[in-house]
């Protein structure tokens, strides 16, 4: 790299001397030009020479050599040197840009663990993660990467999952918690019982996904591949035609026709396109993974940019999939007291509703105060708490015990509570809507999504209520998994335009629907295997708002790709036409070649940048 800079600078220095000082002796100028040319171009000449014997006539080095040597012959020395010099400058910038983007991709891949500390009979042995078996015990010290998936059997710590989820908040974990490979242990020493071998661990899956992502090529990339195949031969043939044909028509000397022909050779590489289009997609995949969005191929970026209908699953996607207290209405006592009675009564139950109560109550339960607990299936619970008779349950329980109460119209599961035969209020428990669900739907509408639909197996009143709250366009409830497939098929078939339908699910029982949709987006969470496999895009953080980010990114990427295609082809064609007309010189041709490449690369790298606006 450094050597190249010195060569370029030295060559440029000699070139400038030759141009600025108009030496009387023509030979001094000539020698300076030739020296300048050789310093920077010898490497290219060598490569070109090597390539002729291998029959590679359309090789870039070879074409540059012909163009410059041709320029020497028609006594256009400054042009010859300039073409070579700027070609090398362009190549230099190009390799800088490639290096930079390769580096930022490498940081994405930086989650690969190098070793695992295997725990054998009280000793630690550093081994390759490949060698660790299921049920082996490994130790992870602060600052180390978690090499394999497992369950904590000793210690607690917080984990940096940024590389996996894009989430900068550390996650606290303790004994019995499952941890995923690829996260970084921040503070405490933990002992882990391995649950998956390395090749099936989370980190291997993600690496595999990122590394192979760009193998699925988009239509734009395939177009460029085809374009490149024909472009160079056509331009080179045209150069030949011009060199030989023009003098026959215009009756001018061959010398004047060689000049535009040489310009053709200079612009004959489709490099700007060949490098910048895949780079735009790659940068976009990289930018997405920085936000915790894994996209499985460039083709999905292209498809995603065409989505105008998004179908959501309800539970686990728009809602948290866990029950939580939504409302407490008390009569005659405080809300805290009502919650306390309910939590005490449900203390021994493991039902999700009981868990939701206890999670909100969050104080120590004095079990000596609870007596005579009676679970009444289909009704609720009866218990004696602190010498009070407490009833917690549904409408039937209240009616059965002849309690006078007011029926609530709220949607969800309602627990009525009576103490000593008197109604004291109710607690509404329901699946909670994710915090960002509402803003997601709103932002989707602002970003070109025409229709948002929810499919769910849940009851009608619950689903319609959520749908209204989130302002969804359509909702279909009481669906069995096979009904979801049928409904989505119907939605796809009903579409008349070429726009695409995306399905968003949590991947647990959505695999067929995820596969059926044009784009399947899974709430991958931390590690639902079926989700990662069945979908095209995985949202690692479970946040619906990431869909907005992904869609915005796809629009931006496609815009960059189109800009680059139009810009590169347009400039080249314009320069070619001007060259034929004798208006543009080889200088413009150099710009059309390397200048355009460099600009297109800089433009492509924009997709890697994730700005605040995209993060929402």
């Amino acid at each position: 790299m450094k050597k190249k800079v010195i060569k370029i600078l030295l060559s440029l220095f000699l070139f400038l001397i030759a141009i600025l000082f108009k030496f009387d002796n023509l030979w001094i100028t000539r020698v300076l030009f030739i020296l300048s040319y050789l310093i920077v171009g010898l490497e290219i000449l060598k490569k070109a020479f090597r390539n002729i014997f291998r029959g590679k006539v359309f090789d870039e080095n070879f074409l540059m050599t012909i163009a410059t040597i041709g320029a020497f012959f028609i006594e256009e020395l400054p042009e010859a040197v300039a073409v070579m010099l700027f070609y090398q400058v362009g190549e230099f910038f190009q390799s800088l840009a490639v290096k930079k983007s390769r580096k930022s991709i490498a940081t994405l891949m930086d989650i690969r663990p190098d070793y695992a500390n295997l725990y054998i009979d009280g000793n630690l042995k550093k081994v390759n993660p490949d060698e660790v078996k299921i049920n082996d015990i490994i130790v992870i010290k602060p600052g180390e990467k978690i090499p394999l998936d497992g369950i904590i059997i000793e210690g607690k710590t917080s984990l940096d999952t940024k590389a996996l989820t894009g989430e900068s908040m550390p996650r606290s974990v303790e004994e019995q918690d499952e941890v995923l490979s690829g996260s970084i242990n921040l503070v405490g020493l933990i002992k882990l019982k391995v649950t998956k071998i390395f090749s099936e661990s989370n980190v291997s899956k993600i690496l595999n996904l990122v590394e192979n992502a760009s193998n699925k090529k988009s239509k734009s990339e395939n177009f460029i591949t085809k374009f490149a195949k024909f472009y160079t031969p056509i331009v080179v043939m045209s150069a030949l035609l011009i060199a030989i044909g023009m003098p026959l028509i215009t009756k001018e000397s061959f010398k004047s026709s060689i000049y535009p022909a040489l310009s053709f050779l200079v612009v004959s590489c489709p490099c700007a396109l060949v490098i910048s289009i895949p780079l735009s997609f790659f940068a976009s995949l990289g930018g997405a993974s920085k936000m915790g969005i894994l996209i499985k191929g460039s083709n999905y970026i292209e498809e995603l940019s065409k989505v105008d209908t998004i179908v959501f699953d309800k539970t686990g996607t728009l809602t948290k999939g866990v029950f939580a207290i939504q409302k407490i209405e008390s009569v005659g006592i405080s809300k805290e007291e009502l919650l306390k009675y309910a939590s005490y009564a449900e203390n021994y139950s493991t039902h999700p509703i009981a868990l939701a109560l206890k999670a909100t109550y969050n104080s120590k339960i004095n079990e000596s105060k609870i007596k005579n607990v009676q679970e009444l299936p289909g009704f609720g619970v009866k218990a004696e708490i602190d010498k009070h008779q407490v009833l917690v349950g549904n409408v039937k329980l209240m009616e059965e015990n002849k309690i006078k109460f007011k029926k609530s119209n709220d949607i969800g599961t309602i627990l009525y509570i009576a103490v000593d035969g008197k109604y004291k209020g109710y607690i509404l428990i329901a699946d909670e809507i994710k915090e960002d669900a509402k803003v997601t739907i709103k932002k989707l509408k602002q970003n070109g999504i025409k229709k948002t639909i929810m499919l769910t197996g849940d009851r009608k009143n619950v689903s319609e209520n959520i749908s209204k709250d989130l302002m969804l366009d359509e909702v279909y409830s009481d669906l069995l998994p096979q009904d979801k497939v049928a409904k989505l098929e119907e939605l796809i078939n009903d579409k008349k335009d070429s726009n695409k339908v995306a399905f968003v699910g949590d991947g647990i029982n959505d695999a067929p629907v995820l596969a059926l949709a044009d784009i399947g987006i899974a709430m991958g969470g931390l590690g639902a295997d079926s989700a990662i496999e069945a979908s095209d895009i995985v949202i690692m953080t479970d946040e619906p708002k990431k869909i907005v980010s992904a869609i915005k990114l796809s629009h931006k990427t496609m815009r960059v790709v189109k800009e680059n295609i139009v810009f590169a082809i347009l400039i080249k064609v314009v320069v070619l036409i001007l060259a034929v007309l004798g208006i543009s010189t080889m200088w413009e041709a150099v710009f059309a070649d390397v200048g355009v490449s460099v600009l297109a690369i800089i433009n492509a790298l924009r997709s890697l940048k994730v700005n605040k606006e995209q993060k929402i």
Partner: protein
Amino acid sequence: MKSNFKIKGLDCANCALELERTIGKIKGVINVNINFMTERMELIYDENSKDEIISKVKKVAKKEEPDIEIEEI
């Protein structure tokens, strides 16, 4: 059968594309994908003549791009 390779020293995108095309023409190669950015090659081929195909691929690549190094991973 599918194998992955690391390609070192690949410094021009168009060359990668041409190399991909040439390797794709080798008998027994079903599909080849060269990723210029990650410097990787994914090769899908007829497993009956694995060694023969891989050595042919390496030979062809060496001839096309003398400066690169190919290593199976």
